[in-house]
């Protein structure tokens, strides 16, 4: 999104708005908020690593 600038703003736009992947960058960015949450959030994963890897 940073590189695409204004071309990142249209939601899920096609080639009529911009070239390449830039017009899909906002969609990807918002969609990927989920990956640090689902299937055990980052915080839970850190708890597990602290306990079972670091032995804390």
């Amino acid at each position, binding site marked *: 999104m940073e590189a695409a600038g*204004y071309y990142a*703003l249209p939601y899920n736009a096609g080639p009529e708005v911009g070239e390449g992947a830039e017009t899909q960058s906002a969609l990807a960015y918002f969609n990927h908020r989920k990956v640090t949450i689902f299937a055990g959030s980052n915080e839970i994963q850190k708890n597990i690593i602290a306990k079972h890897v670091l032995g804390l």
Partner: protein
Amino acid sequence: MDFAYTEIQTMLADSVGKFINNEPQARYALTSVATTADRDGDAWVLNGNKGLVPNGGSADLVIVPARTSGKSGDENGITLFALNAHAVGIVQVLKDKTVEYSKNRKQFGVPIGSFQELQHRMVDMLMACEQAQSLLMWSAMTRAADGDNSKRAVSAIKYLIGTEGKKLGEDAIQIHGGMGVTWDLDVAHFFKRLTTICTLFGNADWHLDKLADMAPQT
């Protein structure tokens, strides 16, 4: 290109939202206008490329800036009028809603706000809000009186919103968990608006660059 031009441009782009002067080479530079307008008898002939027009689909009037003289990049007094106050309001709402949610949402039998990891993160959110609000107050105070500091203040807030504000928004969603990415809660909507503001009229990098250019000479 004169002062009135950039004033009109930012005003229209902000309030009406059916006008913007983006050209592919311009990034966020308001005065980077390569499109030309030449006389041809009684008519004007426009030549050039225009980029994205926010909300262009609902426009009943599109204003197309073009040069009748000079060359691209010529400028004479830039006014940047960003959506800073709006952004400061959004980060405060996101912080308040996140703190409230963490007091109610229970996991492992206790409110998630009782976890130190989340407490520290929400304190960081509060600090970002306080900084943003202070800069906004400085911006308001310098706006009428001091041209140079006014421009610095505007860029400083835009940079803070584009860095700390963005992180605050991401943390607000993270702490809300799965609910944070649904349209049922307004957190997701505020975050989208905040992300849009981060790009409009120059992102964080752009304004850090401007701040460096405006640094007082020693």
